[in-house]
């Protein structure tokens, strides 16, 4: 499966993310209803919908981070690249390695830029074999180059990551996912803490990562969904209302609720 996700595969091979009849409850409150979602490999899929519609819940169910809350119950299935993540014998660490997550607020660790980027790598790789400093430097540079941050930070790699601007922090948070070679990147409103220039820069980066990674991005920003995604999912009250090519969803939505939301009649 190693190289399958490279290039635009359309609907060949297994879906990057596939949910079937997914229901989710927080205690007594049902947040997701019979969600059937198919996210194709190597493209950017955006999820839009009003606050509380279950976008973030759905996103966080994909890597099972939602279970940390403790009072969450799910039925149905979630498959990542054809493998059920709820199956017996699934090691969460392996799931999280394959599925990177980017948060609303950049959350670099309070350590140096270098240590941030290499954190996951050291956690997983460096415990299995001896890793040379040269190899680490190489990974560090290629990860930072991939997120267009190398030139900005190459002279202060050992400075604390928390000293970077929010935009740079968010790019760093993406960079530190790359060394463990994830296939899917989940992004939960990655630009909402950034100013317009930062938003543009991060969007540009997300677009650049398209093809190498499958990206599922939650956003409140309709314009962002429109200009920076291949497919768009509209959710309302825990259900998927519409899912299609972004231009079609925005130009000629099939569902009147989608049209109302996109035109700003509620939000």
């Amino acid at each position, binding site marked *: 499966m190693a190289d399958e996700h490279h290039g635009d595969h359309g609907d060949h091979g297994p879906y990057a993310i596939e949910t079937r009849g997914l229901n989710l409850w927080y205690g007594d409150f049902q947040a997701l209803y019979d969600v059937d979602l198919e996210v194709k490999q190597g493209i950017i899929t955006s999820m839009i919908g009003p606050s509380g519609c279950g976008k973030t819940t759905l996103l966080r169910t994909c890597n099972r981070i939602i279970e940390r809350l403790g009072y969450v119950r799910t039925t149905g299935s979630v498959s990542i690249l054809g493998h059920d993540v709820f199956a017996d014998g699934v090691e969460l660490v392996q799931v999280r390695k394959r599925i990177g997550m980017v948060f609303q607020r950049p959350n670099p660790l309070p350590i140096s830029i270098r240590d941030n980027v290499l954190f996951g790598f050291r*956690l997983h790789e460096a415990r299995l074999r001896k890793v040379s400093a040269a190899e680490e430097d190489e990974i560090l540079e290629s990860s930072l180059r991939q997120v267009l941050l190398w030139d900005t930070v190459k002279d202060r790699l050992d400075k*604390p990551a928390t000293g970077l601007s929010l935009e740079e922090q968010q790019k760093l948070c993406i960079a530190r996912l790359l060394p463990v070679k994830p296939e899917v990147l989940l992004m939960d409103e990655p630009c909402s803490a950034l100013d317009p220039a930062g938003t543009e820069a991060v969007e540009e980066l997300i677009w650049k990562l398209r093809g190498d990674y499958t990206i599922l991005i939650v956003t409140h920003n309709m314009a962002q969904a429109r200009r920076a995604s291949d497919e768009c999912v509209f959710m309302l009250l825990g259900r998927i209302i519409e899912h299609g090519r972004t231009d079609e969803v925005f130009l000629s939505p099939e569902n009147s609720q989608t049209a109302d939301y996109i035109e700003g009649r509620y939000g």
Partner: protein
Amino acid sequence: MFAATPLNRRSDRNQSVAKAVFGLMTVVLVIPVLLIIGTLVVKGAPAISWEFLFTAPRNNMTAGGIFPALVGTIWLVVVALLASVPVGVAAALYLSEYAPDNLLTRAINLAIVNLAGVPSIVHALFGFGAFVLFFNMGQSILAASLTLAVMTLPVVIVATRESLQAVPHAFREACWNMGATRWQTIRKVVLPNSISGILTGVILEVSRTSGETAPIMFTGATAFLAFLPESVFDQTMAMSYHLYYIATQATADVPEELTYGVALVLIAIVLMMNAVSIAFRVYLRGLKKW
């Protein structure tokens, strides 16, 4: 147009009264501290000398120094720390990082709060019954220190838990999402960022432990010992108990100056520990990167 209305003036008056009352209370708070320290310094300072600090009491404790008590207190504190810090920090880590929020966890938290509220004399009796008699440790540094450890455990647990919880949740989330286990998260991110608070709690525990009298009274402290303790199974003198003894129990007349001297040394130790704790916290906070 902008002149004060009667309502404004009344508000201003109330505000001045409030400020005066709160200010007065603050002064009331500080007075006893100043009086205690002032009295101790004035009356006790003449007794302080190298000889006072480094020789044993003589003549039925009416003369000489406090060396065995000083050494004994150090023994008690060190052994108590060795017992309570690992237990307390581990328990706090479990409660803060692993335990689910359920009835049992809440019961345990309640137990810790209650443990902190148990009077020290009750701890003393518990220590006597449990360590001295049941575990057959006899009256010894070990029994006394364990009693002190039980008593100060809540201090360590609460201080540790608070500093753990001061580490932003986003750091943990970041780690978990990179596939770190809870333990890897704790070791690489949570502990390095909370160690200052934990150490502050430990130092506060030191100051509390060194000043307690009741818990060691039945469990290991003795009024007079001609030699220094050699192992944790020996009895020992201790500063706090020594002060209690010469102030209230001694048969011969102990010079007032000597009593105040002991008190001054004891409070100096405690204040120094607190000062170290504060300085340390300020220093480590300066190192924090967020």
